[in-house]
């Protein structure tokens, strides 16, 4: 069934997706909040930037990450100056890449949820002398729960499904960057079809169950 390298790849993939999703929920909330509330002219450009990974080929993201995070790139110079070394071919590098790659899948559901709440509950909270922070945590967050569920599931699942970017900046290192999608690719290329089948079928089942859970737990997400 699964070889030990397959299990290592599965465990690594789950860790990558979990760390990425947690980071994205923290980073994505203020961005989505701003996008949902602002009347600034920057809303369009910022929204477009956030959505870019949906339409860009992973090769474009991988290429620019490799160049900017490499020893001669601005990010690479910065991480080296901090004594962190270089990001390509490391788990941390994959996390950074995945945060970019999955950003719209977290920000957009949150933004939709915030927009759906509207001004009214916040105005009511303000008349009850709730501070904006208080209002956010005790009014907005509970109301936006379906949005957070969608964002978490999509962010996690999309990161699990990442391939092209990892292939370009990963370097295929066991326990570091050899995620399930890369492991499947290796099996297929080496004609190890039995192993490839186990992992590939596992991915199909996982993805189906995740989306099924999303649609059953969160029916409001589909009403429109």
């Amino acid at each position, binding site marked *: 069934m699964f070889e030990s390298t397959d299990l290592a790849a599965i465990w690594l993939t789950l860790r990558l997706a979990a760390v990425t999703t947690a980071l994205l929920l923290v980073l994505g909330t203020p961005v989505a909040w701003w996008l949902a509330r602002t009347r600034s002219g920057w809303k369009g450009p910022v929204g477009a930037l956030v959505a870019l990974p949906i339409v860009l080929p992973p090769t474009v993201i991988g290429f620019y990450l*490799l*160049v900017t995070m*490499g*020893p*001669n790139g601005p990010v690479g110079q910065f991480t080296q100056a901090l004594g962190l*070394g*270089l990001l*390509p*071919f490391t788990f941390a590098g994959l996390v950074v890449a995945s945060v970019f790659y999955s950003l719209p899948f977290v920000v957009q559901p949150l933004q939709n949820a915030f927009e759906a709440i509207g001004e009214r509950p916040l105005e009511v909270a303000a008349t009850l002398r709730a501070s904006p922070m208080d209002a956010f945590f005790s009014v907005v967050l509970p109301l936006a729960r379906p949005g957070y569920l969608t964002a978490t599931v999509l962010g996690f699942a999309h990161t699990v499904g990442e391939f092209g970017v990892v*292939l370009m900046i990963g*370097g*295929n*290192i066991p326990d570091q960057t050899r995620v399930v999608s890369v492991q499947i690719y*290796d099996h*297929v*290329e*080496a*004609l190890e079809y039995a192993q490839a089948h186990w992992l590939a079928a596992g991915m199909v089942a996982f993805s189906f169950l995740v989306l099924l859970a999303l649609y059953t737990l969160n029916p409001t997400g589909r009403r429109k």
Partner: protein
Amino acid sequence: MHRLTKKMSPLFLLIATHAALAEEVQVAVAANFTAPMQKIAAEFEKDTGHKAQLSFGATGKFYAQIRNGAPFQVMLAADDETPAKLEKEGLAVPGGRFTYAIGKLVLWSAKPGYVDDKGEVLKKSEFNKLALANPKLAPYGLAAVESLTKLGVLGAVEGKFVQGENIAQTFQFVSTGNAELGFVALSQVMKDGRIASGSAWIVPGSLHTPIRQDAVVLANGKGNAAAEALMKYLKGDKAKAIIKGYGYDL
């Protein structure tokens, strides 16, 4: 309108006759042979009128693709096992197989002075990342692992491996400096008979199985005039001179 067609008819005739003589051949080329093959293909097209469509990648990957019906007509592999296996499985035309080049493995860094001419840098182990091609798919990757084993340092450096999907990606990892050094093909770092940049150690052939790179006509290319012509052209003096210029033995 009528006048236009009349004027153009000699041109059509020319294109038509040319097309009848010239054929097209789809070639799967091992990634280490990219640069020389591009040169050879250009000369081949000039000299014979045939057209060679080149695809570059890892030999093992091409093998899997050919077994699954990839439309290649000629394969220039990075080893001699894959073409022999294809022949045995009836996926290649028997009898025509020959060695078009003997590859050389090189330990290379983009930094000048980083790799010494005895490969001692491997034992000092001061680097963070050592790039090599996936040994499961690429013969140059396998040769790298063999060499490290013979040198007795495999265990010490294995944790620093960064694997390229083929030798071209491996070269890219090293040339961008993302890996300090790596095992690549001499042909990738050689220009006009010398190492073009950085520092290198040409790994002695005694440390690994010789990288005999064989060419073979695939079952798909049987009877294709361009495929036959290309095989002949690769044995010619012009092609040989180009191949040697990239540091291959013959």
